[in-house]
């Protein structure tokens, strides 16, 4: 019997190293722009397409929120080497701060969201600062502890509205502002981060992940680099939180819910870790999926788990890496 083998060949557009291309025709420009445009145009036109289904428009907002948190997780875990389960922590701090600024200090919405984002990021970074020397699973556990800690503190001391939360947070002026704020910010963060990780400073962060000792030996303080990374990640998370508080017009304990820590990780796993776009794609798949499965009642968690397991077992590299490979390589069968 003749043995056949699948051969993969890179398309000839790459030059020497990743990310540098030789473009010589419109077709090649389209080849490179195509997937990016698909994502950008797709996300931006989504609210218009869903005009007839108002319920699903809300799902798009949540999808983008999870995308942002997943992006921050992917950046920290796969580019800096800090596995941070603090998604819920970032969202909670951002959300509560936005509610405090808006309700207690009566700042308008266009001030409370940016302020909550910046102050929240500083606050989160300061709290995570002491655990930065920790690595791997220890860092993960400490960051997982923070949202639980704050939930109990707010409950026990009955501060910030206690279990009822802070009500009466301003909503967005209209639905389009509400939707396009999050969609555009998500896209900006996505492409901004993709650029950032390939800048010199981004390379230093990736160096911290690969070999932090060598970074120290190069005369760079890894504590400083990690602090910077945590600040960037918590910036994204706190923005997501501040947005949610204004979206639901409420800042309460459910902002610290562990969903915000766990679902983004699942998104990154499904979408493909270390690609950044994978985080978005993962959320785009997972969040609507979990909405569809609502029809099954409590049984949905089971189906959800089965789908997750299947992806992890059969396509553990993640959707994005799989698609990238299919897109950038020819495949053909050859005789052995």
């Amino acid at each position, binding site marked *: 019997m003749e043995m056949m083998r699948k051969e993969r060949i890179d398309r000839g557009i790459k030059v*020497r190293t990743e990310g540098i291309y030789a473009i010589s025709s419109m077709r090649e420009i389209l080849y490179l722009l195509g997937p990016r445009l698909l994502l950008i145009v797709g996300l931006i036109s989504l609210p218009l397409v869903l005009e007839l289904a108002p319920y699903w428009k809300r799902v798009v907002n949540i999808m983008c929120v999870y995308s942002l948190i997943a992006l921050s997780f992917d950046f920290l875990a796969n580019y800096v080497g800090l596995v941070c389960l603090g998604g819920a922590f970032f969202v909670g701090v951002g959300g509560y701060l936005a509610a405090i600024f808006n309700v207690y200090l009566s700042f308008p919405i266009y001030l409370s969201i940016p302020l909550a984002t910046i102050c929240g990021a500083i606050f989160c970074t300061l709290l995570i600062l002491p655990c930065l020397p920790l690595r791997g699973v220890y860092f993960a556990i400490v960051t997982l502890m923070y949202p639980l800690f704050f939930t109990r503190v707010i409950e026990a001391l009955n501060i910030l509205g206690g279990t009822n939360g802070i009500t009466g947070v301003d909503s967005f002026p209209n639905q389009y502002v509400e939707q396009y704020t999050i969609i555009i910010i998500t896209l900006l963060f996505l492409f901004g981060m993709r650029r950032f990780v390939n*800048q010199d400073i981004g390379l230093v962060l990736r160096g911290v992940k*690969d070999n932090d000792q*060598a970074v*120290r*030996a*190069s005369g*760079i303080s*890894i504590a400083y680099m990690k602090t910077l990374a945590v600040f960037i990640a918590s910036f994204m998370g706190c923005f997501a939180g501040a947005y949610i508080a204004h979206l639901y017009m409420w800042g309460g304990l459910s902002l610290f819910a562990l969903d915000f820590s766990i679902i983004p990780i699942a998104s990154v796993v499904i979408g493909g870790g270390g690609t950044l776009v994978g985080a978005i794609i993962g959320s785009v798949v997972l969040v609507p999926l979990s909405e569809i499965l609502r029809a099954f009642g409590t049984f949905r968690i089971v189906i959800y788990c089965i789908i997750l397991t299947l992806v992890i077992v059969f396509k553990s590299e993640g959707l994005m890496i799989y698609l990238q490979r299919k897109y950038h390589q020819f495949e053909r069968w050859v005789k052995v």
Partner: protein
Amino acid sequence: MSDTPILSVKGISKSFGGLQALLDVSFEVYKGEVFGIIGPNGSGKTTLINCITGFIKIDAGQVYFKEKNITGWKAHKIAHEGIARTFQIMRPYYSLPAFKNLIIPLWSPRARKTGGWRGGGKHGDRDTVAVDILEEIGFERDSRVPYKIASTLPTGYQKRLELARCIAMRPEIIFCDEVFSGLSMSEIAGMLPLIEKMKSDGITLIMVEHRLRELFRVANRVMALNFGEKIAEGEPLTVIEDKRVKEAYLGSEEV
């Protein structure tokens, strides 16, 4: 060679629990020389480097770099002063292409301050300098090698990359922790000119080595350690003839 030592180590001691890794080790290194540190396995050579470069806290003793006391400084501050080091177990930034590995030391405050690379703060310039340094250290510019992901490079190139990472910082002292180990004879033959070149560029080299023959071709002075204690220091050939050094390597006759 100037009279004041560029690096002087005074009575360093370090113990890990009950194990005395270093005991009262002192030595001085002068600018522009190649100083070898030899000794059998487990004699504390790498620990000594770790102590001097700040990766391990010292129990007792002082380290002076250009008459400045740098004892107990953080590792990155010591590196910032101009003391670079390679690691015995080489781990490049394995997910980055070889030339991007050098962006990290080139980005460091020291390299930016000393202006180790041409031009302003432009992104492209660092890439150019990185490839220049790699070419200097033996990566062929026009081949694919400098652009390969570092984890896919062969051992010889990874060792060179470690050295390149040090050179990119424009250091005054480089600690080489067993750069020859694991290399074939021809690869070592290719490395020796690099060592000579660094020496002629005025970089002080402190080399920890098991390959004595190759070390003695480049070293001016050698120090021998055994069980964390200095047992001999001086010209390479007098050190190797020293009775205690022979005993350390071969074992003593009386039991």
